[in-house]
Structure formats: structure tokens, C-alpha cells
């Protein structure tokens, strides 16, 4: 079954099914609470069926998002981002993968982006994370730029120094003529300090 609800602060006690997976980082409490304090409606979880021993159901996936623009002092920068939605984290527990939950959750963020009149949705994904890339490509996202050495580690290769990120985007209703997306974003390389 698929059932979504807003992430409650106390869900941090129950998100191990997603967060024990090595591809999902567990941050300090401040990280989760600050999203709840600012964008409570963009932090959504998916639940698995409940049972008498677990009446509220287990957390099987969640998405953390935000809506913002670059700070105003940045406005003259070529890397300035107008008001947009951003996927900060998207994770599905290993036992609930391939059921369409990631697609459903990211659609919910796109919808909120439209509701709040954002230009586009964007996200960073590891260059090696082919699964996530195929998910996003399938949903109409395209690469906007490559951020060199954005990640300081590489979970699949302990020897590696770091890893590039793809900054992927999908335009929302407001960007009717596609001003904020690129068809050939793989060619645009930027440094981590350029992205905000």
C-alpha cells in the first residue's frame, strides 16, 4: 500500500529502515528540525502497512525538500538561483524499492513547487548513482550543470578522493518557455563554491 503523510519531528526515532542504508546519511537533529521549522509541508514520508505491534506503520521512504532563492546579495552572480524547489534528500528503504515510491514522493514536491509558484525543482545526485539518475531522467529532469568534486567521499570506493555531482533540474509551470533548463548541461562544469 502507499500512504503519505507529513514527516513529524518524532519520526526521527523511527527512520532507521531508511537511514541504516549506507546511501542515506543520518545528520544531526538540527538538520531535520530546521527543515521542519521552515518547510514542514515539503518533508513527506511514505508508510508501510500498520499492524497491532506497530500501529502507525513503518517508515518506508521520505523526501525532504525546500523552497527558496539564492540570497539577494547573490543576485548579480551568474549562479544566482531564482525561487525554486530543491530535493534535499530522497530515500526509500531497501525493502520498499522499485514500487514507485520515489517517483510518487518527488511528484509531490513538484506539485508543492507549482503551488508556491516556483520556477523549477532541482537536486544534486552523485555521478555514480545511476539508479537515481534514471529515476529523475524518467521523470523529465535533465542535467543543468556538473559540480566538480561536490561530494567529499565516494561510498562505493573508499580509495576515491571525492565525487562529482550532477545538478539536475525540471522546470515547473512558471517556467513556461524553459528558461531555466538546459539540454546539454553535462558540458557546464562549475566548482562547489559556485553552487549555493
Amino acid at each position, binding site marked *: 500500500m*502507499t500512504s*503519505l503523510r507529513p514527516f513529524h519531528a518524532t519520526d526521527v526515532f523511527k527512520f532507521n529502515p531508511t537511514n541504516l542504508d549506507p546511501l542515506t546519511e543520518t545528520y544531526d*537533529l538540527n538538520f531535520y528540525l530546521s527543515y*521542519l521549522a521552515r518547510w*514542514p509541508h515539503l518533508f513527506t514520508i511514505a508508510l508501510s502497512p500498520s499492524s497491532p505491534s506497530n500501529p502507525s506503520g513503518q517508515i518506508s521512504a521520505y523526501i525532504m525538500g525546500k523552497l527558496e532563492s539564492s540570497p539577494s546579495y547573490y543576485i548579480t552572480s551568474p549562479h544566482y538561483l531564482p525561487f525554486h524547489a530543491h530535493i534535499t534528500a530522497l530515500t526509500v528503504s531497501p525493502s520498499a524499492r522499485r*514500487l514507485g*515510491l520515489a*517517483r510518487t514522493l518527488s511528484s*509531490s514536491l513538484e506539485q508543492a513547487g507549482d503551488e*508556491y509558484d516556483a520556477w523549477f525543482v532541482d537536486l544534486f545526485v552523485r555521478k555514480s548513482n545511476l539508479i537515481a539518475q534514471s529515476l529523475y531522467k524518467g521523470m523529465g529532469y535533465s542535467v543543468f550543470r556538473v559540480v566538480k568534486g561536490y561530494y567529499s567521499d565516494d561510498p562505493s570506493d573508499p580509495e576515491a578522493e571525492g565525487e562529482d555531482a550532477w545538478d539536475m533540474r525540471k522546470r515547473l509551470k512558471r517556467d513556461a518557455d524553459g528558461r531555466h533548463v538546459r539540454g546539454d548541461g553535462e558540458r557546464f562544469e562549475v566548482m562547489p563554491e559556485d553552487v549555493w
Partner: protein
Amino acid sequence: MDNLQDRQDVPIWNAVEAKNYKQALKLVDKRLAKKPTDYLEAVKTYIRSLLPQASEKSAVFIHLEELVNRKSSLSDLAAIDLYEDAFEEVLPGARESWIKTIGELRWQCVKTLPKQEDICLKCFRACLDRDDLDHARQIANSLEKNFPKSHSYIFWNITSMFLFASSPQCPESQKRIWGGLSSGQIGKLAAATREATDLKQLPVRSIQTPQELLLLDRITETFGQPDQRLEYLQDLHLGPESAVAKGDWALWILKLKLMREANRWQELFDLCGTLLKRAREANDSNQLAEASFSDWIVWEAYLKSASKLESHKYYDQIRAEVEAHLDPACKIDKAWKRNASLASVKLTFASSTAFSQNHSAANGEVAELPPRLSAVVQYLQKYGDANTAYDDLRQYVEALESNERARLLIMLDANTGLERPQQPIGPSEPEAKSKSEVPKLSTADQITRAINRFKLKYLVMCSIPEHERKQSLEAKPDFKCITCKGSCGIFCQACLEKLAEESINSYQIAVNDDGQITKSLLTTDRHPADDLCVLTAMCLIKLALIDTSSVSENLSNSRTTYLLQATVLLESAWPRSKSNFQLSLMLVRLYSYFGCGSLAMRAFQRLFLKQIQLDTLSYTMFDRISSFHPHPISDSSDGPSQTRTLIEQLQKQQQLYKKSREHINKNNWLAFKHGSYNAIFEFREVTQKLSHSFSAVMSVIENNKIHRFTTNTVPASAISQMHDLIPADIDSPETTLSDNNDYETFPNYESSLAPTFEELSRFIPGPAETRYRLNLLSEKISLIVDPSPELSGEKTILEQSLKQTLDSQKQSWAASSKSGVGSKSMTRAEQLAGHAYRAMRLIITESCDQALWAKGDFKSRLEGHNSELRERLEELAGLLEEMEAVVPAFQDTLNAVYTAYEVGRTAVYFCRFLNGKGKTVYETQTEASKKIGEAAERLIQVVVEKCAVVKKGLDEGGWIDKVLESVFPESEQPGFPSALLVEAVRQVPDEVFMEEWAGEVVESWKESAAGFSYMKMPSKA
């Protein structure tokens, strides 16, 4: 030097920095003499608070109290900040006093400067940080009044009133006042939105955001009229469809819930019908923008309302909706389609209409099945390759009649009719009907199908019957197994063995696919067949539970054999699936059972716990670590961060609690700033849970015990940690601790009506409040009687607290010792030790309380406590002496040995402590203490002897062979695994692995026994 206001103050702060407080005071006095200011006064107080003398500290506090009572209030915020710092030096963490002094100063400052927004905001924030809700409320009220154009402050005021009214700080008599006011005020704002003509230009005093709507609901729930919540949610301008709601799903969830609670079945039915229809209808741009309306809660509410309306026509409508969703032309996402399929199953179960019959005619044998079984089978056909199919179907399979379950089992066994039909519509293939083929296990989908089948078999063959048998256990201790028809107990050995064998064989086939899947796995992946291995391990663990006989040799009983087999299987699955945390969780438990501390730690570290996970999962390793493996763990295998000592790990956990307070405060403020009112209440729940956490208490206790055990000294931070991490209200009878532990992440394929597998596989009682409270008591006693001189100042306070809590807990404990409460949450050794500690507490408090001496029965009372203590120590010695199977020492042995040693040693110190008190102790106590001392020393002697037996036993050779013989017994014996099962298990690990692993187990036992060398008779005082 953040506090610098004037260049002339520089020398003062330089002196403070150099810790030359005398000089600093001199300088400040000089400046004060010239020009007295509030700020300089505050500097002076701050410097005095830094002085070590207790007299200075109390003078500071008195000064703070005087300040509050002064007529003219302070308006210099920097001065107040300094007073706050001074307060922290004098009375760190004392919230109540903070409120009375600093909180009051801040509020007075706001009253004096109500238009200075910045100052008011700082004061508001400071009060929130201290949970000083009454002052926060007053400041918010002032902000609203003085900045009437601000929309936010209106809500800050309402939120603050509501926070105050719902907190224990609010006097009972005022709860309704503040609650009523918050509800009245937000009600007016709701009315303004309701009546607004232009929703784009709402007045300042109105509800304008989803979070404000959620606040409205929250307040109305507590302080409004019963029907009002739903009324708001039904309103066009305030409900989930309103412009204000911005489509927030949380409001829909509330609305559906409240309609159910209000029995508005017809309305609910119609609403759900509409939502589901909208979900599958494309908008103008051909998008299914409202697909999320087909959330499972909508289907559930739809079905629930139909069942209440009791007419077939409603079910017919639902059926039509299901069909519309499942129509291939409907392009709704698969996650939502699955809901419609599951709704179809639920519908079949809910209605007596044989809905699925019309449908399933095409699916060969499914058509001949009874409707409910057919619904289950169809779902399995469709979604059997999804991991969640088992969880989705579990409750429906449980609801099948037993004859239906028997039919399902036949299908599962033969694997017929369960595959996805090739052609959903059209005549059935005659071939498919009779075909019962060995399933292929070469793709992830095929493997997942097999896993779902095995899990369902486990449910039908084992878990459900076990639960049913358990229910009728008293009437009938022996059963005829409904599946294999053999006679059995609660667990059926034959069925469990059969399933274990089949599923491990399938696992073996799946992983030996010429490496097709295995080779393609990334290091962060898990093998799709893992659950087969987990399921086998579960069967083996249950088989182990059948054997409750006690034998004299640990390695020669069948329980050990089964459990070692489970361990081998999980351990050999791990290299392929390093990220599979369920393998690791089970391994921690199994290695703990075997007393292999270093291996349990190795499995635990594979979880890579961080941050909040240290609260929710530390228990798996650290609960009782002091009576399991209190010495440093020397094994270090996989991974880099293995070297951390146990104490460091516990301290890392304790850091989490300290840091999280800061984090919560910071975000509480952020939530106010961003108008996320609902989040504020959620943050309070997190605070409550973390400040009363089981695991926090555990970390303090285990840390102190380990420290004491390994160093024979009092942990330096013992007292401050107790203050910091143990809730201040712990002894109040209303306080309960919060069990934040995560038991759900363990794999669990049990029937939803039965205990979870995590519970079933507890070889030793799990975390429990009774035990933690008892541990806290024993901790206090250990500190009081500790001979170390460092603690002398703290002891009196601890003694007082023992006395104070005695009264509040007397009754509940009197009841608990009679009814034997604790027997479920503690091992036998812990229970006996618990009784001994309670007796020690009574003796300490009563034998020194001269007011009691004159009472007629005092002498016999005291005698009673003394003989209770002595007898419990003797009982413990007896318990140890009787333990036979101690080599190698499994968890139960280790627990008994370490628990006994600890209480024995405390009792020795306890006697010395009382002897040292001279005439302030009742006169007969000296004699009684002597006897107790003797019993305690004898107990320690028994402990030391028992440990010597274990060590000597382990020093003898041949253990690796014994382990290998135990895992794979040569000959078949009753109660032991069948030769077939042994053979099936043997196929999984290779020989090299087995040799190495057995060696590790033996090493781990030896490493564990190294802890015994710390246990010695306390040297004579």
C-alpha cells in the same frame, strides 16, 4: 570578551580572562565608585559568580532575587545577559529558579521597553529556550499589542498561550483561562478568514497559512467544542480545499479522520468517491495532478464507510472505482495502482459479494477458489515480485478460514497458480494449470517471488498456528500440528525444520547463480535473496527455543546447535550484503547470547550508528554491557573506527543528548520565525522523549558501572551526568521514562497478532523501566557507600535524595516485590540483586534516622531489612553455585557473575560505610553489618571460583572442534536438527570460512573471560 561595552572595561575583562577575579573585582569597584551603572553592577555579580566559595555563590543568587524585587526594572539587555551567565555559574540548569529570577528580569525589561522590538524578541527567545512559558506568553502578548500590524505576533501570542496552558507549568486553575483565550482568539481569526470576500487580500487578523490552520485544529481539539474541528475543516475557506490550505495533505488526513470519528458515513463515502475519481482524472494539461488522492487512507475510509452503510450498492461503487483505477487506460503511477489492487483484496474480505469471482474466471484455477482466497492469490500473482507483498497480505491471510489457509498452503507448496498470468484477459491456458515447476531463482523478481511464498508459508505453517496454540496452552500443552499432523508443542519442530531446509536450499540456489546477481552487486547493495537466509535463521532460532532442558555442557545441547547454525548462515550472508542491517541486528543478538562480546560488537559496528540512532539502537549492544562485557574490547576487525572504548562510545551517545537540546531550542525559535506553529509542538514531543529516554538512563548507568569495574574509582563525571541526563522529575510517581528504542527494524515475519520476532528472540529480558529505575537506585547506593574521598561533598545530597524518594516509591515497590514484578524484565540474578539494593537503601535511610529509633517495632524492622539483604546475597551465591553449564560462559552466566560481583562488592562497601558512621547508626546495625559483610565476601568468593572454572575450561584445547561438532552434529539425535537440515546448512559456508569463524568464536570467548581478571575481593579497609 563578548560583553565589552566600554573601552574602559577592557582591564576588567582582561583580569577575568586571566582568572584574576580579585583584581577584576577591585577594578570594577573602582569604576562603580565613579559612575555606577546597571551594567557594571552586573559585571560585578558575574565576577563574584566565578569565585569558588559557596558563600559567594549564594550571595549572587540572593542578589539576583533582590534585583527582581527592586522597584525600577533593568533595561540594559547586556546587563541581563551577564546576570544570566552569573546564574548559570551558580545554579546550572535550575529552571525554576531561572524563571523566578532571569525570566522575570527579562519580562520586566520588555515591560519597560515594549516598543524596542529587538530587545523584546531576544527576551522572548531566551524565555523559550528555558521553557519559561509564562514569561514567553507575556512577552508575546506585549509584542502583539505594540506591533498591531504584525500578523506573526498575533499567532505567537496564541501559540504561547496555548503552550503555557498545556504545560505542567500552568497552575490547574489557569489552564482553562489561557486555553480558552487562545481558542477564542484563534476562533476569531478563523471567522475573519471565513467571512473574507477577497481571499487574496486577507486582513492582518485572519488565518492565512496551512500551519495556522493546523494550529487552529490543535487548539480546538484541546479547548474548543467537540464538533468545531470538523466544522472548520468542512468550511470552504478553512478546509483542505481552501486557498489558505494550499493543498496541504495534513489537513485532508485530519478531515478524513474526524469524519470517521463523527460517524458521518454517507458524507465520508461520497467524499472518498470524489477524491478517488479526481485522482485518476487528467487535468487540462493531461496530467494526473491529484493522483495523491488515491492514498491508502482514502481507500480505507471508503471501505470503512461502505461497511457502516450496510448496503451492497456501496460496495458496487467501490468495485467500479477499483476497476477504473486498474483499467490499463488509467495512467496513474504504479504506487497508486497498487492501492487499488489492495483495496480490491480488502473489499473482497469486507463484502460477502463474491466480487472477485466475476473477475478471476480468466485466471485458471483462481476462479475455483473461494473469493477471499482468490483475492489473496490474485494480488500475489500481480505483486509477488515486490518486496512488500508479504506485508500487504499478512493481515488478510490471517483472516482466512483455516480450510482456506490449508488450500493456500498447498498452492504455496506446489507453487502453482501464483505466477503473474501471462495474458490477463483471455482463456486460461490448460498447461499452466497442471504445471508445478521448480521455480527459477536467477532474477531478482523470481527470488522475491520465492521469498514472498516462503514468508507466507511461514505465516500459515508456523506463526499463525503457534499463536493459536499459545492461546490455548493452559488447556492443552500438547498439540496435533494442523499442517504436518504430527504431535507438537507450541512450535512444531517438523514444520520449522521443513521450512528452514527448503528456504536455505533456495537461498543456496539463488546465491550460486554463477555469480550473475552476486557479481553485479555494488558494495552498497544487498543480495535480493537475503530474506531467505533471514527466514531460515528465524526458523532455527525458534527451533532452539523448543529446547528448554538444561544440560551440563553448553556446547552439547540442541539449542546451541540451532543457534550456531543460524549464526553461521547470517554471518556467511553478510559479505555479499554488507549493507543489510537486519543481518547485523540479528547477529548482535546471537553473539550476545553466546557471550561473544567482541563478535557482537563487530556486528554492531557494522550498523554505523550515528546521531539520533545512538538513542534508538544503542540498546542492542549496550543495554547490560556492564554485566556482559565490562572490560575494553580488544578485537578489532572490519572498518576503521573500531578502536573506541566502550566508555567513549557511551559518551558519544551522551553528547547527542546534550547537543540535541541546543538544536531543539534553535529550531523552536526558527519555527516561530517562519510561522511553523505545528512544528513547535512536535519539537516539544522530541524534547520530552529525549529528556526521559530509556537509552539516556542506560548510558549513564552503564558508563558508571564500567568505569567503576575497570578502574575501581568513581567516574569523574558520575554526579554531573546524573544531573544532566537523568530527568530531574524521575522520582515523581507521575514520571514515566520514554522508550524510544527501535524494535521494529528487526526483521519480522510473524503473524501480526503474535509477538514480534524481536520479542520472541530475546534470550534475556529486554529494556524495561523497572530495571532502569532499580539500576538508578543501585547507582546512588554505590556512590554513597563508595570509599573514595572525592565524593564526600555529594554524599549527603545523595543520601537525602534516597530518603526523599523512599516515600514516593514505597508503595509501588511494596506492591512490586509482592507480585514479583520485575521477573519479566530482569534475570534471576538481577532480581535478587534488586532486592538486596532495596534492603540496603532501607537500612541506610532508617538506621541513621534517629526519629525512627523510638518506634516500638524499629528494632525488628531493621532486623528484617538486614536479614532480607543477607538472604538475598546468600541466594545469589546459591544461584551461582548451582549453575552447571558455564564453559564457555554464555550471556546468562556472564550476567549472573557480573551482577553478583557488583552487588557483593557494594555490600562490602556498604558495611564499611555504616561502620564509619559510629554512633549515628542504630546500635544493633554493627553486628548485623558484620554478618552481611561475611555473606558479601562469600558471594564474591563464589564469583571468583566460578570464573576460575570458566577460565580453566577455556584453557583446555579442542574448542574449535567442539564448535564445529556442535554446528554440524555427526549423528542424528532426537531434538537435534535432522541430517537433511544439517546438510542444507552445511552447503552455505565453505570449509575455510567455517574454520575461521569457529576460531573467531573461540577467541571471542577467551577475550570475554579476560574480564574476570578484574574481579577481586575488595582489599581490607
